[in-house]
């Protein structure tokens, strides 16, 4: 007969059983018993952040840069509400994550108890699923389900709300090997007949494009995507979320598409005759105005795990619902067996057209500038790290320059909040990345506005010795806001100037890290090299950049992909 243990101990044992090495959290009244149990063991490491939003972003970065489920632990009430931004961020980008939140004791629920909020209600629209545990006997199974739901199908955050008394109640601990749920059976294999249709269509193409998104990264389908693209010799473009899914330095890569995508990628998207969408969702920042997009005739094949992504914004001709790597394997097999050969002469013409578009050199910028150009900093970062770093970013112009100028050749190296666009994501996410990849070199590309949204995490970095390299592209503006105001609001820069900025060098130093201020273009490379030599230290590099620089190309909101503003 096994002994009975408390709900708190059960929770920690569940985490151990799931192989969780590291969680991110912040204590409080409702989770004290949980913290007590964490204290008594060593298998699960707890990282104490300085704000719950950061706990969730860090767990998120941990998940994105590894293939594990991220875990965050927060207390009830304000702990949970602080975490909501992080949860919504993970939800929009389909990141597998389990959030454990404390709740007031069962008998106090609904009585407006101290630090009570309706956690399940507040988080319902931004989680894949959530649970309120009402009986300690169901705790272990619920946590098992949470990990299962978070990591299968289209991944996403799952929240488990545990009332304080449940963490004290005792029961026997049995961790189920697996769960089956009659209401949740994610598809894996795609429909074979659909795959055959797709193969025929692909081989009939005269102007094909492969368009791949975050689904390729999340499902680890990069190998299959490369095999497919190479087999066909077709061009491939990645979304912001899909960067690294196909190597950016390969000659078949068109770079990123979308609002700030390359000229060649957007033109190819607009004028292709067969579009092969892989783990991507045709969102508004990617295809612009869907009506304009549909003006051109093209056939669309859409491979995605989520049926509700299909024909949501754009009508699809051949949908294949399934796990991307499995579908791609089958598709590659079908293509190899297919007797038809693709039209090589048409393909040659298409590549010629693409090369003409490429010759437009849409990412050019003034390399002779006497003021630091932000693009140049990212390029130098790429050179100094030999393209091998993990790069997180915040949200704004710097994010777009990072995406355009750091050539990601591998998946899970580019970590950003694409869906929700959460400023404040970069630094805490980088902490998670560093903890998941202790040997990896981790850079956070940020702006002086974004970094201030979670700057307190410099303290966490000190406590755990996380040697992040923070690249602050300091233009003294909420640059992306300023750019829109310049283009669409008659240069009226309402509230987008960043006044009263701190001295970032001193600020960093006060947290016990190294700070650098770089003001001349000729110092950029040296500073980056020096920073990366400081292997064990966090270095905050404050690059004073050109205030007037804008991100190009740009597809203005509501416009079509071929209506880009170019430099």
């Amino acid at each position, binding site marked *: 007969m096994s002994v009975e243990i408390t709900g708190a101990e059960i929770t920690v044992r569940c985490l151990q059983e799931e192989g969780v090495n590291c969680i991110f959290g912040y204590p409080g009244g409702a989770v004290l018993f949980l913290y007590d149990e964490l204290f008594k063991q060593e298998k699960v490491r707890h990282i104490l952040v300085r704000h719950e939003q950061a706990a969730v972003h860090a767990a998120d970065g941990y998940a994105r840069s590894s293939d594990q489920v991220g875990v965050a632990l927060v207390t009830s009430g304000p702990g949970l509400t602080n975490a909501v931004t992080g949860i919504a961020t993970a939800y929009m980008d389909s990141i597998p994550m389990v959030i454990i939140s404390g709740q007031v004791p069962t008998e106090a629920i609904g009585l407006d108890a101290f630090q009570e909020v309706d956690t399940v209600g507040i988080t319902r629209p931004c989680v894949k699923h959530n649970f309120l545990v009402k009986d300690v006997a169901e705790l272990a199974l619920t946590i098992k389900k949470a990990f299962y739901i978070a990591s299968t199908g289209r991944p996403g955050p799952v929240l488990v709300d545990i009332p304080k008394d449940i963490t004290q109640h005792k029961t026997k601990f049995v961790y189920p090997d697996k769960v089956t749920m009659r*209401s949740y059976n994610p598809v894996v294999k795609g429909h074979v007949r659909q795959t055959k249709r797709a193969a025929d269509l692909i081989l009939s193409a005269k102007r094909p494009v492969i368009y791949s998104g975050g689904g390729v990264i999340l499902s680890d389908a990069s190998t299959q995507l490369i095999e497919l693209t190479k087999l066909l010799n077709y061009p491939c473009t990645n979304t912001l979320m899909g960067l690294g899914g196909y190597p950016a330095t390969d000659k078949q890569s068109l770079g990123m598409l979308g609002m700030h995508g390359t000229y060649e990628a957007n033109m190819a998207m607009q004028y292709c005759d067969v579009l092969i969408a892989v783990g991507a969702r045709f969102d508004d920042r990617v295809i612009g105005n869907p009506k304009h997009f549909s003006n051109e005739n093209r056939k669309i094949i859409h491979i995605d795990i989520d049926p509700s992504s299909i024909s949501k914004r754009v009508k699809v001709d051949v949908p294949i619902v399934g796990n991307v790597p499995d579908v791609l394997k089958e598709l590659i097999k079908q293509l190899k067996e297919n007797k038809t050969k693709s039209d090589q002469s048409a393909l040659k013409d298409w590549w010629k057209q693409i090369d003409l578009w490429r010759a437009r050199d849409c990412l050019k910028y003034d390399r002779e500038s006497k003021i630091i150009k932000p693009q140049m900093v990212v390029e130098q970062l790429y050179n100094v790290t030999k393209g091998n770093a993990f790069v997180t970013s915040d949200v704004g112009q710097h994010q777009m320059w990072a995406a355009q100028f750091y050539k990601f050749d591998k998946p899970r190296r580019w970590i950003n909040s694409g869906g929700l666009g959460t400023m404040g994501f970069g630094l805490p996410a980088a902490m998670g990345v560093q903890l998941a990849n202790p040997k990896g070199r981790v850079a956070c590309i940020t702006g002086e506005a974004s970094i201030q949204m979670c700057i307190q995490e410099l303290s966490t970095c000190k406590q755990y010795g996380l040697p992040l390299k923070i690249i602050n592209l300091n233009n003294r503006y909420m640059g992306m806001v300023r750019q829109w105001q310049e283009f669409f609001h008659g240069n009226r820069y309402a509230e987008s100037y960043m006044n009263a900025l701190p001295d970032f060098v001193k600020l960093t130093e006060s947290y016990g890290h190294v700070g650098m201020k770089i003001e001349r273009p000729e110092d950029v490379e040296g500073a980056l090299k020096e920073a990366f030599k400081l292997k064990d230290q966090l270095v905050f590099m404050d690059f004073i950049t050109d205030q007037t620089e804008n991100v190009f190309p740009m597809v203005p909101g509501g416009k079509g992909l071929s209506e880009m503003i170019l430099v």
Partner: protein
Amino acid sequence: MRHIISLLMENEAGALSRVAGLFSARGYNIESLSVAPTEDPTLSRMTLVTVGSDEVVEQVTKHLNKLIEVVKVVDLNDGCHIERELMLVKVRAQGQDREEIKRLVEIFRGCIIDVTDKSYTIELTGTSSKLDAFLETMEKSAVLETVRTGASGVGRGDWILKV
């Protein structure tokens, strides 16, 4: 177009709010919604009436399917189906009107389930449009109160919605 969607879901606290939340979050219409446990008490059966283009309703069913607690979803419009709604309606019934209303109720195959010297309470089942038709035949000022359950639907013939 009006669609009638049937679904089976886990009979758990919160499941209903997930369905309702989905509709409000994505801006879909709910015309009516009725739900109760089935012969298997772990399952609830819901009938949802919504109005939207075919594309929108396709998205609705896909999103309903995605809800973790939803076991099965069918759009009953995809095949032949039967639907019924229950209405209780209290009407003013005095003098000559009493006979007239009784006749109307008979025509609509309803029954009068409560009587006072000033009013009748009428029970009526049928398709939603039949209930609408009944109300239309009544003089507006005579209708004192209506309670409707919203439609419940099943497929015709041997076809069943089961786990």
